């Protein structure tokens, strides 16, 4: 059997079963006598065992078999206790680690130590500590830890397959070759692409291997990629290159393509007959279809937040158990769909936020509720982590902000609590000393903020002392196609992602006040500072006008009004990354081409203003 061919399918399907197992175990935690759940868990383990055995993933099959046996005992007894749940969770962790080994092309790790743990009921008076997956360090002691050697041929090499074959044979001089990509068979049948990845137990040092391989002028690059180290907690959901698409969705796409073909003939006919109304009608239908098609294609990339939420449930479960707290996690909106690329970027920030909530939100309490919510608001997805813990004392933040020089003495007095909370995301804040009692809260929040803003999102923090804290992420639905606000400044059109815009308004000069050198505007019963985009971009000064077009946005936790020449309107655009060296331009996060062919740059207000601030100092 050509295993490679089925490997991806195995990985996708096994990941689904693993996720289901974690979810069921967490449900069993609160309902340990549910026959239905135990049965379901047994079936999941059974499926994995069967699949892994077929694929000859022996360690996975052995472990799944053991879990199946354990569950069979539980099934007969009709319940699972917490120790067993922990042990089963550790088993699922180990299965996930094995899944990772397989997807990374590594040899499966040994499950021996897990198999030596006690079966359910064998010893119920002393709690069994959950078995951790074997650590990387542990594997090194067997000597000759396998390494990866990656060889990239220069593009000009005329016959890649024979060259790779020579190199693969050469690698056997360096140690025992365990595996290679492409495989020997693939090389012999010329299924190669100028790269070779070899897993071997080396006899030579990587340095010596490098020297040997450098003798081949056809080799452009030699590297020794490190296999990624796994941690059982907060691990990323498995990335896979393939996407499952429902046949219904595919049929829909095919129908749309069919309609497009019909429209094409209609348009060609109308053009031939110079019949303008038909042409007009056709273009109208065409734009409707393209919009629909675009929507459908985007849908293919969409995934629900379910996997992410279940992972976070697991994080909460483990942390609560290790810190002896009783925390109930309420989730809502796991079915909300979002671009898979965004979900991948959310794993770390959300894990961090949830940990913060457990560690610090419930600093003084032993029990509480964490709610994890997601909902759609037009083109945005909002994800919120809220706790009913101690909350954050604004006075403490005020003091730290003053000490750290984040706010002036005058600002400290006038700043609203809400604006104060946003300061927690400031890099300077995270180093706040530990005696303040809100430490931790800020630790790493700047990293969260950077990650979220990197995908065009926004972080909003709110808290009420004694009642709890909530952190809300405002996210775009997709990374590639986003809604922007088009504006104009000194005859140059620019775009601002709509997720960054709080409001676009025109204000009359009567609403503008000056406070020292700074102009302020009365916005929703609050004075916010005005900044001129022309000034920021060093464009020539504009003429005075009757009303000022303003983009209200939030930068570094503070609301500001950005004065532009003209607000043009909203539009959906396809954002393209700028090629180097243009990607280095500060304040510009990408570009897009408008319908009239004009190139418009996307403004990244955050970096633009941060740079300006640094320049001022």
């Amino acid at each position, binding site marked *: 059997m050509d295993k490679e061919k089925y490997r991806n399918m195995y990985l996708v399907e096994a990941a689904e079963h693993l996720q289901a197992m974690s979810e069921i175990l967490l449900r069993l935690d609160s309902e340990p006598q549910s026959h239905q759940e135990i049965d379901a868990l047994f079936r999941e383990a059974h499926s994995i065992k069967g699949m892994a055995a077929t694929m000859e993933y022996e360690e996975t099959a052995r472990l799944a078999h053991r879990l199946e046996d354990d569950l069979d005992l539980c099934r007969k007894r009709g319940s699972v206790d917490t120790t067993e749940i922990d042990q089963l969770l550790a088993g699922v962790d180990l299965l996930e680690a094995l899944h990772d080994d397989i997807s990374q092309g590594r040899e499966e790790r040994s499950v021996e130590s897990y198999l030596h743990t006690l079966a359910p009921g064998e010893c119920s008076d002393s709690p069994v500590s959950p078995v951790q997956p074997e650590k990387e360090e542990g594997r090194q002691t067997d000597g000759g830890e396998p390494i990866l050697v990656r060889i990239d041929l220069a593009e000009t090499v*005329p*016959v890649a*397959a*024979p060259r790779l*074959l*020579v190199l693969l*044979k050469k690698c056997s*001089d360096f140690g025992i070759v365990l595996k290679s990509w492409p495989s020997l068979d693939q*090389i*012999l049948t*010329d299924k190669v692409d100028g790269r070779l990845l070899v897993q071997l137990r080396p006899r030579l040092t990587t340095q010596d291997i490098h020297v*040997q391989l450098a*003798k*081949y*002028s056809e080799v452009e690059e030699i590297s020794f990629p490190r296999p990624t180290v796994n941690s059982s907690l907060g691990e990323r959901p498995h990335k896979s290159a393939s996407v499952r698409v429902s046949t219904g969705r595919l049929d829909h796409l095919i129908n749309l393509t069919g309609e497009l073909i019909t429209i094409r003939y209609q348009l060609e006919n109308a053009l031939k007959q110079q019949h303008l109304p038909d042409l007009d009608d056709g273009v109208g239908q065409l734009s409707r279809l393209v919009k629909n098609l675009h929507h459908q294609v985007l849908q293919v990339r969409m995934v629900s937040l379910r996997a992410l939420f279940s992972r976070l449930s697991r994080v909460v479960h483990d942390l609560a158990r290790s810190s002896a707290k009783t925390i109930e996690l309420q989730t809502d909106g796991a079915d909300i769909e979002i671009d898979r690329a965004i979900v991948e970027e959310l794993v770390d920030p959300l894990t961090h936020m949830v940990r913060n909530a457990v560690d610090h939100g419930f600093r003084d309490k032993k029990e509480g509720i964490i709610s994890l919510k997601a909902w759609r608001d037009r083109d945005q997805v909002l994800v919120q982590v809220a706790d009913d813990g101690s909350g954050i004392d604004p006075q403490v933040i005020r003091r730290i902000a003053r000490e750290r020089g984040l706010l002036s003495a005058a600002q400290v007095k006038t700043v609203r609590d809400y604006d104060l909370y946003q300061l927690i995301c400031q890099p300077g804040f995270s180093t706040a000393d530990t005696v303040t009692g809100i430490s931790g809260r800020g630790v790493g929040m700047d990293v969260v903020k950077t990650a979220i803003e990197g995908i065009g999102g926004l972080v909003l923090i709110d808290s009420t002392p004694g009642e709890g804290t909530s952190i809300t992420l405002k996210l775009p639905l997709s990374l590639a196609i986003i809604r922007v606000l088009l504006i104009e400044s000194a005859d140059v059109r620019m775009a601002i992602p709509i997720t960054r815009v709080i409001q676009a308004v025109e204000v009359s000069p009567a609403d503008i006040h000056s406070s020292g050198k700074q102009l302020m505007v009365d916005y929703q019963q609050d004075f916010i500072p005005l900044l001129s985009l022309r000034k920021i971009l060093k464009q020539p000064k504009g003429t005075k006008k009757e009303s000022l077009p303003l983009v209200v946005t939030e930068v570094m936790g503070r609301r500001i009004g950005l004065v532009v020449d003209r607000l043009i309107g909203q539009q959906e655009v396809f954002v393209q990354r700028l090629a180097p060296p243009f990607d280095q331009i500060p304040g510009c996060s990408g570009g897009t081409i408008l319908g009239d062919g004009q190139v418009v740059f996307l403004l990244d207000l955050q970096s633009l203003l941060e740079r300006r601030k640094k320049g001022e100092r």
Partner: protein
Amino acid sequence: MPGSVLVVDDALFMRKMLIDIFSQAGWKVIGEAENGEEAVAIYQQQHPDLVTMDIVMPVMGGIEALKAILQIESQARVVVCSALGQKHLILDAITAGARDFIVKPFQSDQVLEVAERVVGC
């Protein structure tokens, strides 16, 4: 450190070219052969450090000769020479035990790089 070499090719022109490249670089060309049979006979007597072997030749082809030479000396260093289009023959030759290969048309520095690499180890 250049060593001794046996050049095997059915085309006189190719042989001359290879011999010139090797001689100029200080190699000792101990012989030339125009088919596999001759090559095996010379190898048996001289045991050169290196053999450059054309693959497609009359009487006895390169791969057959390669196998025969490896029978005589399992560590024999044979490099096959072949045209670009004969990728599968090159793969067969390497599988059969050729140490490396040279693709025609070649540059002298390519030939010497392969030769030195194979003999150097």
